[in-house]
């Protein structure tokens, strides 16, 4: 089952603003910090043709009376947590996909589509009654079709996709609706005359493999309803897969100094969050996006797991020097720590740098303690005081990002 809260940010805002509820409303990013785009819009705004991700001024042109409101992430996180609590009362197997979407695994011996549809309807009603926002629910025997089902049931309702009806319901949909068919893949498929999901399902596998490689076969399996991936229980705190942080900077970064400064702040945050969860990481990756919105990321395996700020920072700097020497002005950057494992009390270690590691760990513990008690700004690295960029509290402002759907798909390069 896949549950998707509709126009989530806008729905929560409308709920909390009775005065603006009946007006065209959109949640917009902060123009001054260069997030000046529409993040979500309500039904009224949709009628004016306002699209997510367009610039605020474009939206204003289409609808001069549009109410644009700033995002209130703590509020959205609260709603998201409340919704997850409702889902979790039906099954422990839930997997969030961003703040507003979630897969639920309800399969057991006694489950059939009729019962699942009843449960879907119940969840749908509970979200409306208890949170005051609407949710679309798709029920199916695999995650991909369940997600398509929830898209079909928008703006509000439930849809059941069974082995008996998927050819009529799913196959006529445009191929771009399928999970992981992005713009580039859609273009390639369209060129070859594959317009609908049904076309993709019926297309010869050999041809797809030649054109798109392994991904082609995966997409075809999705289209045929052969996706077997499990709901990953990612909401269980035991199985956090990676910890990452990224920011869009208030201005384009040109000098190496500036980029390093921001990486520094991000590394501090990622390391602090690793320690908070009692985890260590043995793979660090960094990503960078330039002002033309081209992005790239690189990763590196560590010789031993770490949660030390200084060690993570060294790796990040090494990766940066190695891969991003030639780059345009930088717009956003990020760091991710993966291959996580619990931070066991360290085993006896005769490495020569043991004393130094212990020292680092002591510093980190002290800084974490001070910040817990007195706030982030209580202690800061002198290096970060050089520029206003260093003031960004990456940890405090972090937002949950969708967990990657394809496992092992760690490095993503796109140009």
């Amino acid at each position, binding site marked *: 089952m896949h549950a998707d809260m509709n126009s989530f940010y806008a729905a929560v805002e409308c709920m909390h603003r009775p*005065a603006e509820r009946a007006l065209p409303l959109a949640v917009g990013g902060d123009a001054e910090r260069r997030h000046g785009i529409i993040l979500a819009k309500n039904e009224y705004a949709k009628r004016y043709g306002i699209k997510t991700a367009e610039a605020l001024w474009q939206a204003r042109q289409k609808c001069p009376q549009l109410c*644009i409101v*700033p995002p209130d992430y703590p509020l959205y996180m609260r709603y998201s947590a409340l919704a997850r609590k409702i889902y979790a009362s039906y099954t422990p197997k839930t997997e969030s996909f961003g703040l507003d979407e979630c897969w639920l695994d309800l399969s057991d011996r006694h489950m059939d589509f009729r019962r699942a549809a009843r449960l879907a309807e119940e969840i749908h009603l509970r979200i409306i009654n208890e949170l005051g926002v609407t949710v679309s629910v798709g029920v199916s025997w695999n995650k991909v079709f369940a997600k398509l089902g929830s898209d079909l049931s928008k703006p509000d309702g439930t849809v059941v996709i069974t082995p008996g009806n998927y050819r009529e319901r799913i196959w006529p949909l445009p191929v771009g609706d399928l999970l992981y068919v992005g713009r580039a893949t859609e273009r390639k498929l369209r060129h070859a005359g594959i317009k609908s999901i049904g076309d993709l399902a019926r297309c010869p596998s050999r041809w797809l493999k030649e054109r798109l490689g392994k991904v082609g076969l995966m997409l075809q399996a999705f289209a045929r309803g052969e996706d077997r991936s499990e709901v990953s229980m990612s909401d269980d705190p035991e199985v956090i897969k990676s910890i990452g942080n990224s920011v869009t900077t208030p201005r384009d970064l040109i000098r190496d100094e500036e980029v390093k400064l921001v990486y520094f702040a991000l590394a501090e945050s990622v390391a602090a969050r690793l320690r908070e969860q009692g985890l260590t990481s043995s793979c660090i990756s960094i990503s960078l996006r330039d002002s033309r919105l081209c992005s790239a990321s690189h990763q590196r395996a560590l010789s031993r797991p770490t949660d030390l700020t200084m060690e993570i920072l060294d790796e990040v700097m090494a990766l940066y020097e190695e891969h991003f020497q030639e780059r345009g002005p930088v717009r956003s950057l990020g760091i991710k720590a993966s291959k996580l494992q619990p931070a066991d009390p360290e085993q006896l270690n005769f490495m020569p740098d043991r004393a130094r590691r212990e020292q680092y760990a002591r510093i980190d513990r002290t800084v974490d303690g001070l910040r817990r008690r007195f706030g982030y700004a209580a202690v800061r690295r002198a290096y970060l005081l050089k520029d206003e960029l260093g003031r960004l509290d990456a940890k405090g402002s972090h937002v949950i990002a969708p967990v990657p759907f394809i496992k092992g798909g760690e490095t993503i390069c796109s140009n």
Partner: protein
Amino acid sequence: MLELIPQDHNHEGKLYVPVWAYYDACGNIKPLALRLGDQNFIIDRILDVRPGASRKAGGCGIRYLCRIREQRFALYLEEDRWFMES
């Protein structure tokens, strides 16, 4: 520059009120009395407790259906604040 409309938590339709509440040893919370203007009212009875949302007030939380002097009304616990529809 485009102006963004800030959220007004204290709007017409939503009234945050001071509440006296009892926490039992398990952490269950029961409102006992509330203050409206300069008057205190004792809650005579709690008729129903469940998670709920109020469209009128614009908010959600634990909804306590209460009775004070034969009048029924809903009191919402929104994280750590109490509100009612007005």
